[in-house]
């Protein structure tokens, strides 16, 4: 309890600094006080929306991952586990192959939501759903959708490149409206998940335990799944399926401050945003705008392994 408030405040300051600094970094140069022609357009019109979109998407993925891991009582769960990313990939691939690349975000969003709805309706067929059934159904549906995506890649011809880049995720086309959409999803969903921190704590010991502790476990489960799905589907439609952030950020946070979701939720929001902004800045500045998903895993995985090695524990 004593360490949590300074940590949250520290993370919030770090988040603001990260956003400000990364807005002024880029291949075109432009420092803080640049008055060169076009500087305002590039910094304000291109970089700022991109940085903000990356922040809100990273925050959304991380908080959805933290919530899903508690809900599924499984530290290995990631926010895509119920089929969102493969559904989004299918939607995006269909748009790329058959619509010449138009409406990719819309189709990605529809694909992600359709995947989740399919999983829910299959798993919930008999009225009573266990999280295990949900998890297994999600994995099965993911594989099925991935198979279709692989088929589309096989027949895509010249569009292969575009599909593959989409699958790895990035913020190449981030617009101010993308940043606003991501923020509009994150603020209510993040607040909702924050106020469900205790429900998540109880749920992470089991739904029956939660019920015995006076939690409305069924309502809490659907609320958490609903909020997470909105966040993840939004993220997928904006930036494709960026891996690693949603799985690992909550772990890093738990290593620093323990598993209490009242703290893990806000800390994951801030840390997820910071990590993705930094990764995206590195990608566009030093790696000729590679897909950011490559950077998150390439730099994040060794960092994570180092953390595990240091702490000798994973959660």
């Amino acid at each position, binding site marked *: 309890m004593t360490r949590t408030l300074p940590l949250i405040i520290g993370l919030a300051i770090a988040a603001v600094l990260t956003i400000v600094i990364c807005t002024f970094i880029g291949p075109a140069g432009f420092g803080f006080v640049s008055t060169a022609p076009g500087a305002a357009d590039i910094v304000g019109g291109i970089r700022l929306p991109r940085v903000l979109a990356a922040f809100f998407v990273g925050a959304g993925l991380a908080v959805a991952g933290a919530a899903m891991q*508690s809900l599924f*009582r*499984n*530290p290995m769960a990631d926010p895509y586990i119920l089929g969102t990313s493969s559904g989004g990939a299918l939607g995006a691939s269909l748009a790329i192959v058959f619509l010449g690349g138009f409406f990719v975000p819309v189709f990605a969003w529809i694909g992600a939501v359709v995947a989740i709805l399919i999983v829910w309706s299959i798993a919930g067929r*008999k009225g*009573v759903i266990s999280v295990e059934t949900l998890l297994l159904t999600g994995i099965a549906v993911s594989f099925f959708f991935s198979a279709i995506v692989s088929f589309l890649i096989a027949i895509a011809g010249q569009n292969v490149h575009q599909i593959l880049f989409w699958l790895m995720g990035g913020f190449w086309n981030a617009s101010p409206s993308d940043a606003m959409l991501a923020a509009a999803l994150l603020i209510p969903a993040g607040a909702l998940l924050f*106020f*469900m921190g*205790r*429900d998540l*704590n*109880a749920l*992470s*010991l*089991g739904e*029956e*335990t939660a*019920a*015995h*502790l*006076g*939690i*409305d*476990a069924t309502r809490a489960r659907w609320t958490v799944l609903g909020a997470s799905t909105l966040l993840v589907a939004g993220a997928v439609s904006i930036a494709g399926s960026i891996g690693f952030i949603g799985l690992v950020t909550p772990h890093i946070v*738990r290593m620093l401050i*323990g*598993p*209490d979701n009242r703290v893990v939720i806000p800390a994951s929001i801030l840390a997820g945003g910071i990590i993705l902004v930094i990764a995206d800045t590195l990608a566009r500045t030093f790696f000729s705008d590679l897909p950011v998903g490559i950077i998150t895993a390439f730099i994040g995985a060794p960092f994570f392994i180092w953390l595990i090695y240091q702490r000798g*524990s994973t*959660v």
Partner: protein
Amino acid sequence: MTKKTTLNAGNLSAGYIMQEIVKSVSCSFTAGTFTGIIGPNGSGKTTLLRAFSRVLPSSGLLELDGKPIADFTPAELGMALGFVPQDEARPFSYSVMQVVLMARYARTSRFASLTPADYARCHTVLEETGIIHLKDRSIRALSGGEWQRVLIARALAQDTKVLLLDEPTSHLDLSHQSDALALMTDLAGTGSTIIGVFHDLNLAALFCDRLIMIKDGTLVADGTPTDVLTPEKIREVYGAEVVTARHPATGRTFLMPLSTRSCKTPGERETPLRVLVVSGGGSGADLLHLLAGRGYDLSAGILATTDTDYGVAEALGIPSIPILPFSQITAHALEKLRGMVVRADRIILPAHPVSAGNLPVLLVLREAGPAKVIVHLPAGREFASYDFAKGAAATAMTDLCSAGASCTSTYDGILAFLEQSDNNIPPQSE
């Protein structure tokens, strides 16, 4: 004295998809009682408990404090009823204190913080359950027993008037078992309603004032431990043979299992071999138990009612000829013994102290048929060491052996002689 009914179930049925486990159970529980639910594996004990706590849907009547349990909000139920599970997965490294604090969630608005009073209450509970030293420990680093005590502490910190326990002591060692259950007894003493599922019948008998026995999802017995834990009911419900006795310190009923390992009828005979064990001073206790488990038709000889052998014979339902301690063996008793000797196929005589008082018993054996007798003399001992009749007893025993009795120093030897007799019945000597 009218006690308030807290939990009331009428024709309660519950189970899982396509499978009804609990069938039409009716029972009610009053404040200030500690009830044990017992029954064999798969009989529906835990299912019943989970139906009580509403995590399993049920049909029928289920009321808590006179109000249908379905009408409680989740938070109201969390303040009215606590549950200690058998075990719980621990995927995340919460501290013990964090887990116990979850007991206070039902009382706290999601927009508020836990209060210092909540922390104080949890601190007290951790002290009561003797795990205050684990307060800041990660739950993943606890042993199974320590974790079970955390789960008990968490349920206590809910401050509910009804507490359901699902084998709350299955991972605990002997002293922590009685500590935990004594705590429950104290709680019942202050007006709580405690209902626990138990595997260990003796533990249930020791701490519960009432037992409910369940078989195949239906209630088969309901009453005090003494009423419920009878050998007949245990045989009917568990299919196990037990003897009951009184706990030497508490006077409560307790059970001891009998070996049912080899209950086959020895040999090919339609009726089991009739074996008479003539013993005394505890010398026949083990033997009676051993032979009872093998299905022989046993009888015991003349035994003082204070003799260990008498207690064993009574517990196993073996007929004997009881006499008062330190009394002379009457002619009547000897006559009855003669009758037993004649009826027996084999007679086993474990070496035991013989004085002038019980010397006539040996004489009866000798006159009635030494060939039927199997004498058991432990290795390294002599007849003389059992003689308290100035040599007469040792002589009588030696005579038995020389007159054709079989002699052995081991129980295996006795069993071997009995098996022989199964195949080859010795002539009935009159």
